[in-house]
């Protein structure tokens, strides 16, 4: 079973979002996603200041197997990317919800996050995928 923390919200593209105290959201890929991708060897993160709409391809994770886009789960402006992933893309594998975060975003509309799946809904979604 993959890890699905209660503190995050989730998308069908297997991304997680966490609302921070300053109103920004931190975004990464889920434990399920990193397991399916395999060992990561390269992560391309967005530049701070870049603006993305919902569903825009905004980052790329490349594993030993294949490349995969990260789609922006809520519209907003990037405030920060995880610089540690430049030299250690494997952090996404070893710590998908903490050290392996990918970027932070200031959302246009904070309420948009509430429309995503919570941990319970994402767990159900994963269970359906396995059927």
């Amino acid at each position, binding site marked *: 079973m993959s890890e699905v923390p209660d503190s995050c919200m989730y998308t069908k593209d297997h991304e997680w979002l966490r609302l921070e105290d300053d109103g920004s959201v931190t975004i990464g890929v889920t434990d399920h996603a990193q397991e399916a991708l*395999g*060992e990561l*060897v*390269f992560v*391309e993160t967005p530049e701070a200041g870049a603006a993305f709409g919902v569903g825009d391809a905004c980052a*790329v994770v*490349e594993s*030993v*197997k*294949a*490349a995969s886009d990260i789609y922006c789960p809520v519209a907003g402006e990037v405030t920060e990317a995880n610089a540690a992933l*430049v030299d250690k893309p494997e952090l996404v594998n070893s710590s998908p919800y903490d050290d392996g975060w990918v970027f932070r975003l200031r959302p246009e509309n904070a309420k948009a996050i509430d429309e995503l799946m919570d941990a319970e809904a994402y767990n159900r979604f994963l269970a359906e995928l396995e059927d």
Partner: protein
Amino acid sequence: MQMGKQTDFFERHLAAGARIVDFGGWDMPLHYGSQLDEHHAVRNGAGVFDVSHMTVVDVAGADSRNWLRRLLANDVGRLSSPGKGLYSCMLNPAGGVIDDLIVYRRRGSGYRVIVNAATRDTDLEWMQATAADFDVAINERSDLAMLAVQGPAAREKVAPLLPEGLGKEALQLGTFESLDHDDVFVARTGYTGEDGWEILLEPAAARKLWDALIAAGVQPCGLGARDTLRLEAGLNLYGQDMDTQTSPLVSNLGWTVCWEPGDRDFIGRKALEEQREKELSHRLVGLVLEDRGVIRTGQRVVTDAGDGRVTSGGFSPTLECSIALARVPADAGEHCEVEIRSNLKPARVVRPPFVKQGQRQV
């Protein structure tokens, strides 16, 4: 649920935590947790691969040598004594590659040929068809299991564990030499760019050897590591880097075509001679990405002499950058660009191998 054919080691793969994938109709281990760790184990120590899915064909009969000299672009006439082996392509009349293989000369008039798993059916059909006028018997040895133990420490780790005390004799083998005792066959070959052995055994002895190797600390390795190791070693993968539409001459395998003696009429010779007389339009080269990112199979290569195509791309764990094999126009210069996800990224054109016996070559 997995539905493919399984080798004699399948339960052991599962027990070792393998992630199983389909490969040419076989359920094979992709990795046992970390493909990167497995890769490094082979470059720095020793790793064991289950390659029992590969097809082993024994050739017997008075015409074995004559038939193989007709069938293969390399010349088994060069195998000056029993035990010696060589790498060759098996061509169609148009000079396209039906498969690549290793052939070993055995005692008496026999040979042992090891071909790819995915091409088994077409290979056997082609062999049977071409053998019609020769006194040869072609016998597939699906009863044998096969392990490849590779890495700088591989031979010393395996030698004491070989059945029948064959270790001492096996340690005397030179590159591409084999020993052959009843149902134990050991060859100093492999497809990783490292020293090591490929070992054929009957299943019970093979499982015993596997268990002993794991107990001795040899890393089990899956197809993922096998692919990055062979790519770093500049070794072609059949179906990607060459196939029936490409000749050895445009696949960086010209060295495996034995032109002398000129009257050896191997299948595909005429077509290759015609190609050789004209200027070759393309060649298979190595690429080293000079930017961050990963080159993937099928991507477009932009050169000063026109476009080419990546035939095998990936991440090199040893060089810690992306490398590839690519078929490019013959006149392409030293620098090119690879179109990675709509971006043109600079790459250097090099001569494979990228890594040889653990050392960077490019």
